[in-house]
């Protein structure tokens, strides 16, 4: 195997001279002629018969060449050389062609760079190293990042010391936005009021949510994306305080988020508070059904390991306080993972 490879490699570097093949074939032909003469033919006829029997030499030479490893590279190199010579011959044409290509590539790169920064690239959160997700794992059902209920979240938030802020987000909703202009279906994310504090992001217009807006029966307020602001409100600088009707409920717009803000996923148009108030469930179920996923910002001096240890203790305490089969199962564990490995961005 290795020998074969080395042999091929050697022949790739040192080619056999074509004359060598030529001489080999000629020698064969002469042998045929001699055989014919020895059989009693006159020299002319011997030569003729031998040539006929022997057949075309050119095709054989060509076929021999094509046996060499990488023979087609020769053809490619020849083509490239020919192309290069042709370009040198007509410098005017060459200049125009190169200029056209350069301009085309340049303009496309420029456009793509702009589009990427403005539209495609998700916004970087400041100090992302301290941003974590709380991930509930249900080992015996092979589920990671299982959503948990508000009771668990509230108890966790009340006791945890490792985080400067602990928040939650709920299921995405599709609502109909009406009011000025055609009604349209928008993606709405449900987040806890402190979500921008955790993400260390400021609205470009207006303010973020207040803690009282996160409580049951709090004011219906909404933050909107830059994209929606541009598309539906024509970048109106007076948009804060304006009404927006979402599924027939009158909300008040309180702020606009920066372009590229993608939390918890991309393409969210609006953010509202009270993450567990999922419209698909009756209000009686909001507190006890698992709808929330947790995220948090680590305190400056707290390490990931310390946070993990604390969350583990809190989880065990929660299991003891709620001795029902779902919550108390020791195979249910709460983990802390850095955001770059867990949020779908």
């Amino acid at each position, binding site marked *: 195997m290795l*020998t*074969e490879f*080395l*042999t*091929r490699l050697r*022949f790739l570097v040192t080619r*056999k001279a074509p004359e*060598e*093949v030529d*001489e*080999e*074939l000629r*020698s*064969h032909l*002469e*042998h*045929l002629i*001699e055989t014919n003469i020895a059989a009693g033919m006159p020299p002319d006829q011997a030569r003729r018969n031998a040539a006929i029997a*022997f*057949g*075309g030499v050119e*095709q*054989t030479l060509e*076929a*021999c060449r*094509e*046996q*060499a*490893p990488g023979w087609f590279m020769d053809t490619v190199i020849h083509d490239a050389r020919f192309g290069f010579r042709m370009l040198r011959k007509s410098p005017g044409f060459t200049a125009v062609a190169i200029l056209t290509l350069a301009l085309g590539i340049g303009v496309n790169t420029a456009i793509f760079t702009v589009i990427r920064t403005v539209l495609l690239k998700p916004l970087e959160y400041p100090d992302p190293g301290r941003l974590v997700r709380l991930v509930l794992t249900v080992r015996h059902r092979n589920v990671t990042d299982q959503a948990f209920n508000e009771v668990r979240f509230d108890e966790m938030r009340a006791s945890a010391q490792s985080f400067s802020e602990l928040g939650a987000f709920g299921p995405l909703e599709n609502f109909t936005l009406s009011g000025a202009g055609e009604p349209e279906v928008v993606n709405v994310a449900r987040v806890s009021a402190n979500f921008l504090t955790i993400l260390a992001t400021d609205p470009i217009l207006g303010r973020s949510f207040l803690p009282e807006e996160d409580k049951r029966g709090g004011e219906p307020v909404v933050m909107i994306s830059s994209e929606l602001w541009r598309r539906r409100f024509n970048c109106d600088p007076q948009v804060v305080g304006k009404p927006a009707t979402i599924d027939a409920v009158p909300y008040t717009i309180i702020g606009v988020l920066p372009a590229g803000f993608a939390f918890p996923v991309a393409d969210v148009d609006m953010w509202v508070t009270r993450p567990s108030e999922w419209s698909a469930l009756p209000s009686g179920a909001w507190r006890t059904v698992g709808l929330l996923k947790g995220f948090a910002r680590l305190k400056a001096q707290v390490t990931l390991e310390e946070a993990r240890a604390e969350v583990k203790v809190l989880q065990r305490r929660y299991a003891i306080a709620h001795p029902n089969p779902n919550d108390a199962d020791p195979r249910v564990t709460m983990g802390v993972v850095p955001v770059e490995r867990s949020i779908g961005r």
Partner: protein
Amino acid sequence: MKQSTDLLQGTLDLLILKSLALAPMHGWGIAERIEQVSKDALQIGQGSLYPALHRLEYKGWIKAEWGVSENNRRAKFYSLTQTGKKQLQTEMDEWDRLTNAIALVLQRV
């Protein structure tokens, strides 16, 4: 003129390797030897012989050296390499396997 039997793909390589197993030979020697041994049933034209020799040489199964032929002409002598000897055994086993299989089918066993 005798009708030459069409060779199965890859068979020529095997025939060449087998011919060279006895002694180094030049191109036309190989062709003549195959013709003689097969009682003229197999005619190897130069158009397939030389490409095959080159292919085998590139694969490292045979090597070539210039020498002088029996009638004092400069000729290229081919001989089996170590790899070539192993390859000959492999190809012969493969051939046996194939012919046995075909025989089985033809006898409709």
